[in-house]
């Protein structure tokens, strides 16, 4: 009897572990399918003409250069606005805040902000920045709206990075007669910098791939922005419109592939920074 039980136990164990393996394989498989499909169909599109020239004609033949410029422009602007605020906010939460109502409110707000659907963030940007503040459809309106989307993400990764700095390293600094700000600025932030950077890069990837926020705040006009007040069409928006309207699908494949490449690049850079940091500290 007992051995029968043991056999059953082991059979169940084997089946269950196989199912868990299957889940992991399915997840990797889903990613693999997406990557392979997008690459196979997109790779032929990636010519210098496609990347570096302007589109022309009703079917938007030619390149997508202005959308690449608009994407980079609005991403950079959003990161410039968000990063300092988010990092300092994280410094407050990790180093200065005393548990209490105020901190609870801030955390609840950050969590809420993080879960606001991006379409809502888009309409918010339209209402406040585009129409309310008269910025019209512009890179700055998009960047400001994106800033609210990215803020909680960067705050969270930065706060985690700061908390990961060992306490006794701070004590060393305080023990030498460093003030709080001296300790934070000279010891804590430099020690946390690689991990903070990783978080910021991943957030930049999020900004660059965002569609719903940007479409209502920067519009769909093909334009390479020069001033922050200029409108433009980013790559995700371009991809969405082409796919929706079924025009120039080959070009949509190219854009999709570029977007995926960009995300890959952001991830690899973030990973590389993380690994280099571990090696240096180890």
């Amino acid at each position, binding site marked *: 009897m007992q051995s029968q039980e043991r056999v059953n*136990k082991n059979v*169940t*164990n084997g089946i*269950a572990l196989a199912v*868990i393996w299957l*889940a*992991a394989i399915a*997840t*990797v498989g*889903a*990613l693999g399918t*997406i990557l392979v*499909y*997008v690459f196979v*169909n997109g790779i032929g599109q990636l010519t210098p003409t496609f990347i570096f020239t302007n589109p022309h004609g009703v079917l938007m033949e030619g390149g997508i250069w202005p959308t690449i410029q608009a994407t980079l422009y609005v991403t950079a602007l959003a990161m410039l606005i968000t990063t300092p*605020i988010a990092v*300092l*906010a994280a*410094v*407050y*939460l990790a180093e*200065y*805040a*005393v548990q*209490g109502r105020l901190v609870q409110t*801030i955390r*609840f*707000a950050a*969590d*809420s*902000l993080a*879960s*606001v*659907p*991006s*379409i*809502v963030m888009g*309409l*918010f940007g339209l*209402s*406040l920045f585009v129409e309310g503040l008269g910025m019209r459809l512009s890179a700055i309106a998009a960047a400001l709206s994106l800033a*609210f989307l990215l803020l909680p993400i960067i705050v969270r990764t930065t706060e985690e990075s700061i908390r990961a700095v060992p306490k006794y390293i701070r004590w060393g600094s305080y023990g030498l007669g460093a*003030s*709080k700000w001296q300790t934070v600025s000279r010891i804590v932030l430099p020690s946390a910098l690689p991990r903070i950077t990783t978080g910021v890069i*991943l957030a930049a990837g999020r900004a*660059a*791939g*965002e*569609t*719903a926020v940007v479409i209502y705040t920067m519009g769909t006009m093909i334009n390479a922005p020069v001033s922050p007040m200029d409108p433009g069409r980013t790559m*995700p928006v371009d*991809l*969405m419109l082409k*796919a929706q309207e079924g025009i120039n699908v080959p070009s949509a*494949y190219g854009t*999709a592939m570029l*977007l995926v490449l960009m995300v*890959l690049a*952001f*991830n690899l850079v973030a990973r590389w920074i993380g690994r280099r940091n571990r090696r240096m500290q180890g």
Partner: protein
Amino acid sequence: MANDADLTGHDAAPEMCADPSSAAAAPQPPKHSARRALTKITRGTYLKEAALKNLFLLCAFVAVAGVALIFIFVGIKGWPIFGKVGIFDFLGGATWFPTKGHFGILPLIINSLLAMTGALVLGGPLAVGTAVFLSEVASPRARALVRPAVELLAGIPSVVYGFFGLVLLRPIIADLFGGLGFGLLTVWLILAVMIVPTIATLTEDALNSVPEGIREASYSMGATKWQTIWRVLLPAAKIGIIDAIILGMGRAIGETMAVVMVAGNASVIPADVLKPFLTLTTVIVMDMPYASGDHRTALFGVAIILFVISMIFVAAIRVISRFGKRVG
């Protein structure tokens, strides 16, 4: 604000000493090492540290301001629809036909819930399974492959998911089941994959925070790996997993661009999983380009509802976590 005390680590706000040199004039001892007087905090130091602290607090407060601003600025554009149609008719009305003056979003709510539920049924087990794999089953090498895959899935823009669904998945579904391939089934498959990283990452964190000793205790009593996972680890990580699933639900119900490309967008409750349908998020994308007047107001009204739903999810996580802490 808060507690100024920890600026310098002093319990009471220090008395200012405007002139530090007066303190330096303490009598010098006759022999041995010099006895320096203790320095007082100068007004400058104190003000600088206090100013920095308040600057950081201000930055942290941007998050609070953000939530308030969203509420206000989506609210002012959308609120009038509740007055015009009545909030119950807006939420409970069965017909969404804005050009004819029908602003009932009940079908959209139901469709959003249908999309979310199906995605959860498919994606939840996939995500939890992947998390268990990462935390309990995988060899270091397998982990080094699967974890980056999960991170990459999180990074892929939703528009790419939608495009992928449109050009690959939709034709396959159409071939297999007939129809055009637009509908709940396609949406479920796409959303299921999209919520995997959210749920898997947080579930893995929850599993990793279960103390190692608990695993050892279970194995030492002769439990198999699966028994340990099923009877000990998953229950121990229960609260974290529930939180993860709620966040996944939020992600699914708020997802827009991926859904709009494969849902087909018809404003009725679909008769089966292969028929086109419209959700709370996709209606905004579809109608915004041409909507005006009450129609536009109604779309902002939908945004308010979406915002409130996402807040409810966040609040639910708070309540559950607090409850979980109390239970142990």
